[in-house]
């Protein structure tokens, strides 16, 4: 059971889809889809408990399973070892939980909006869930690619069949754009496999696509910089479109505007994270040097995206398009954090992925509620709705605040850590060498935060406050909706709000579980440093970041828990090579050696 729980979670929606195919027409369809997605959520939560028991802090990946898929017979023919490999670390686990959490809400939100071809609709949503869950636990590059690509198919149909007026164009643009990028990723995957095999360093000389093994080879320096450079570029082609990074983001606002509400929720909530997850799981660990080399370039694109998309969002009339552009802007922060190559930055980025999924997904849900009543999303046509729909107003303001990073809500934690990580990126610390980014990147990015607050609050003001402005014959209550939110609508918004508050107030468990995973699987720090970092977390709240000087090379710098130091008055003025440098072992005992 242990090793199969992930497989069960991933393919459980498939079982639901089959049941839906067999189900007779009627209202039972949507209830079955909703119920089944709750089953998947329950299974995912069970998987979390197995995950926590399996010792995620000590291992790279847990709950692993392996079934051979493409093999190459005996060694005389040359071994091929491509398999169905799954397993998770904290990053994958929490993203799986996010997916399993958002899908039932998206299905619940579709109850009144979707009234034609219901069966196909819910089957496709469940298919989509299979693809997303699969990506987050795939440990074989081919399997990863299979799930990554597969997500396109259901979403293509979801947009193309149940979308808005320009649905076909949007669906095609979404599909072709993403595919054009990911065929290059495919080339990168194949070339990586070939190069690793031809270097002769793989286990048993086999041609393998195991992510774990390729990561190991990447760290051992098997891939020369030139090779890494090309593969990084190929990976980036696919992932950057998905994220989306400026300037390949143009499909996203269109796809969002045309997609049905549930499609937008899943797209913003989870699908965009496949891109950042790809960077985080593949590009950075397997191609470490190229990642450092590309980091300034990626960061500049991310910052352009942050500011450009924020300005573009400000100009939008369509509320949904505004939120879509805000996604582009927010994902820019995520990329910035990832490429800071610091634990703080990367864990901030992962937090950001989760938080963005929650707040933006919820914003799309709220907008869906408005649209169902007023059949428009234009800021010019609706206004002053707070008096008509107080509950809706509450949730819209709440999620807006969460999205712009109000301290105390979830958005703040990720944002802060990303900016912190970026700022300290070029500082040597316990994590080792200097990273590629620095303060200079923080300044324009922080501007993006201000702009974010501006356009989001502006949107809130236009929609909620001021004189009442409703199109004729609205609100439309023909489908059993009430003027304000129904219990069902409150039911799917409230859980997200609760999670937002929890993550904002107490992010510690999440961050603590992410830290070892990031240190070990993403940044590939040596074990003694990971031990030191974990030690610091346990023993002291204050982390001192020491700077490298000429006398002390970055690799020599150790960080000690604040408690292990004897604070003196001249502490801050003492040169780094004169202050107490403690190895993790001595720091543990609270005794610092003089050096």
């Amino acid at each position: 059971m242990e090793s199969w729980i992930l497989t069960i979670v991933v393919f459980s929606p498939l079982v639901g889809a089959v049941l839906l195919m067999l189900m007779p027409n009627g209202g039972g369809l949507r209830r079955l889809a909703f119920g089944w997605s709750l089953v998947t959520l329950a299974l995912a939560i069970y998987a979390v408990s197995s995950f926590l028991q399996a010792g995620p802090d000590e291992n790279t990946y847990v709950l692993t399973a392996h079934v051979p898929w493409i093999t190459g017979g005996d060694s005389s023919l040359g071994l091929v070892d491509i398999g169905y490999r799954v397993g998770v670390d904290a990053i994958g686990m929490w993203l799986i939980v996010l997916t399993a959490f958002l899908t039932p809400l998206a299905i619940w939100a579709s109850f009144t909006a979707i009234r034609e071809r219901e069966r196909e609709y819910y089957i496709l949503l469940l298919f989509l869930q299979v693809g997303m869950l699969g990506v987050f636990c795939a440990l074989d590059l081919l399997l990863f690619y299979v799930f990554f690509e597969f997500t396109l198919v259901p979403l293509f149909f979801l947009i193309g069949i149940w979308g808005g007026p320009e649905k076909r164009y949007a669906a095609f643009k979404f599909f072709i754009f993403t595919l054009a990028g990911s065929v290059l990723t495919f080339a990168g995957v194949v070339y990586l496999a070939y190069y690793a095999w031809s270097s002769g360093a793989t286990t048993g000389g086999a041609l393998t696509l195991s992510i774990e093994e390729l990561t190991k080879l990447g760290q051992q320096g098997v891939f020369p910089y030139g090779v890494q450079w090309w593969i990084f570029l190929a990976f980036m082609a696919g992932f950057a479109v998905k994220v989306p990074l400026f300037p390949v983001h143009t499909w996203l606002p269109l796809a969002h505007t045309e997609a049905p509400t549930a499609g937008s929720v899943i797209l913003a909530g989870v699908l965009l994270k496949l891109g950042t997850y790809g960077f985080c799981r593949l590009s950075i660990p397997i191609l470490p040097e190229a990642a450092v080399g590309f980091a300034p370039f990626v960061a500049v694109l991310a910052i352009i995206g942050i500011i450009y998309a924020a300005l573009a969002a400000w100009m939008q009339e369509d509320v949904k398009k505004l939120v879509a552009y805000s996604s582009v802007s927010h994902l820019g922060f995520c990329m910035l954090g990832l490429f800071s190559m610091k634990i703080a930055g990367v864990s901030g980025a992962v937090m950001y992925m989760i938080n963005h999924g929650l707040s933006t997904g919820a914003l799309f849900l709220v907008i869906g509620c408005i649209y169902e009543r007023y059949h428009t999303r234009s800021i010019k046509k609706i206004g002053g709705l707070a008096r008509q729909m107080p509950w809706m107003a509450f949730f819209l303001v709440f999620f807006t605040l969460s999205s712009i990073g109000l301290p105390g809500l979830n958005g703040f934690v990720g944002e802060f850590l990303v900016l912190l990580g970026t700022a300290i990126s070029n500082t040597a610390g316990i994590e080792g060498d200097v990273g590629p980014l620095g303060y200079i990147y923080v300044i324009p990015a922080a501007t993006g935060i201000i702009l974010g607050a501006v356009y989001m609050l502006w949107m809130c003001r236009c929609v909620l406050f001021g004189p009442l402005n409703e199109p004729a014959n609205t609100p439309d209550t023909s489908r059993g909706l009430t003027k304000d939110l129904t219990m069902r609508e409150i039911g799917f918004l409230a859980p997200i709000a609760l999670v937002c508050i929890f993550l904002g107030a107490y992010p510690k468990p999440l961050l603590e579980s992410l830290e070892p995973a990031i240190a070990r699987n993403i940044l590939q720090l040596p074990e003694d440093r990971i031990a030191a970092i974990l030690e610091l977390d346990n023993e002291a709240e204050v982390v001192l970041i020491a700077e490298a000087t000429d006398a002390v090379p970055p690799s020599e710098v150790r960080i000690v828990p604040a408690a292990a130091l004897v604070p003196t008055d001249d502490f801050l003025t003492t040169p780094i090579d004169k202050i107490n440098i403690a190895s993790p072992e001595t720091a543990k005992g609270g005794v610092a050696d003089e050096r």
Partner: protein
Amino acid sequence: MNGSAWFTQLLPEWILLIGGCLVLFLGATRSARSSNQLPFISLVVVLAALVVSVLRPVEGLATTAAPGLLLTELTNYVRFVALGVGLLLALVNWHQPISSERGEYLAMMLFSLLGVLLTASANDLLVLFFAIELVSVPTYVLIGLSRDDSRAPESTVKYFFLGAMAAAVLAYGLSFLYGVAGTTTMYVVRDGTLQSTLALGAGMDGLALIGLLLVFGGLCFKIAAVPFHFYAPDVYEGAASPVTGLLGFVPKIAGFVALLKIFGAMDWALPTSFLWIVWLVAAASMTFGNVQALLQQNAKRVLAYSSIAHSGYMLIALLVGPLAGAGPMRDGVLALLFYIGIYGAMNLGVFALLASYQRDAKSIELIDEFKGLAAKAPIAALALAACLFSLMGFPPTAGLLGKLYIFSSAFSLDQSHAFHGPLVALAIIGLLNSAIAAAYYLRLVAAAYMQSNDPDSAPVPKEGMGARLGLVCCAVAMIGLFVSPMSLVRRAKPVDVVLTGNEVSTVLTAAPEDSSAVVLAKPLDSESASSR
């Protein structure tokens, strides 16, 4: 050679031949024409041949049975794939045509399959030529018989004249190869291993190159590669859909197998200038086929151009050949053989759909005519989508793995090899092409799913389940081979041993052999040499 080996080793071929004749004769009787007897017999014949070839595979590295034939592992694989797709073809052609020539029609289909099987076993250039003509000639008849429409004879004539010219070019090229090598035998068995006999000798490059070029040109017609592709859209459009499904597979597999055999017989010691020509043909086929397909309104023309593009993908694998090493992911031969098998099924699936639905008593052809299909026939629409996503190379279908094998073999050529760079470039051209291709396959999918949800606007299913059953089988095969690709690859694996077990230094002419070697090719060798 004892007499029974003639029969037992070639049992699948005999079954097809006798079955074909039986269908032909029964077709002359009135009672058989009007019932489902003939298609049923054809199906049973193909099934019997398949069962026999699976149960009694050719054993060992190479076994010889008859003059001019050499049964190898390649024979096993081609038998399996051709007869497997042949089963689907028999299903799809179940109700085609509804006319008095049904017996002739189905017999021609069986003879064409027989030609494919013989191509895989041919060991003599002349036999190879005849085998390929045995594939082609029945297809001319099939197109003409397929429907009562003025376009069918036009297609027949076009295909026939161009086909005849291609055959002449091929024969002329083969004569050059004979001139260079001094023998028409392609392989001899020596010490239990295959040795090629057409390898280029010093100073003969020029003549051999002309021969190779002519052979390649003639076979490019069979596989519908640029610049010998012009007939494809017109012929595909003119023929009835079930025949078009056959045209996309049977001549293609025969052409590629012939190319494999000839290149193998030259030890893959192909001149670089020739490699560049294949490179150009591959790149042009992919690009031209895909771009043209984007502009079409008729689903059959779309698939015709897509067939050209797919030949381009397969030429990449052919270009790599066995040079990148053995085993899946590296061996181009294996990638080609895998791809041709799945291509036959996924391409046929789409034509099966076209064959099984009609509007105003005419089979659907235009893309717009797909509308409403998903509402009317969800299973058929789903199967169609599976086949189209497979053509696109998308998970979860075997098309993705086919592309994986092809492109990874292109990347796997050793870096020191002069053609490493060009092949990587070609693979990237191919990958970008598969993104272009997605656009027009998606149009078909979108037409079936997105244009209308009104079952009344949907096309009407034709009588009979054969084609629809074929369609579903194709789709199931695509998903099944994605989950378990090794079930097909395992059969293709020994094939590369046959084609690459040779030593590159093999001499070109029939050297004196030790009498201990069990060879039947040897007497043939001298025979054919003396008879000239």
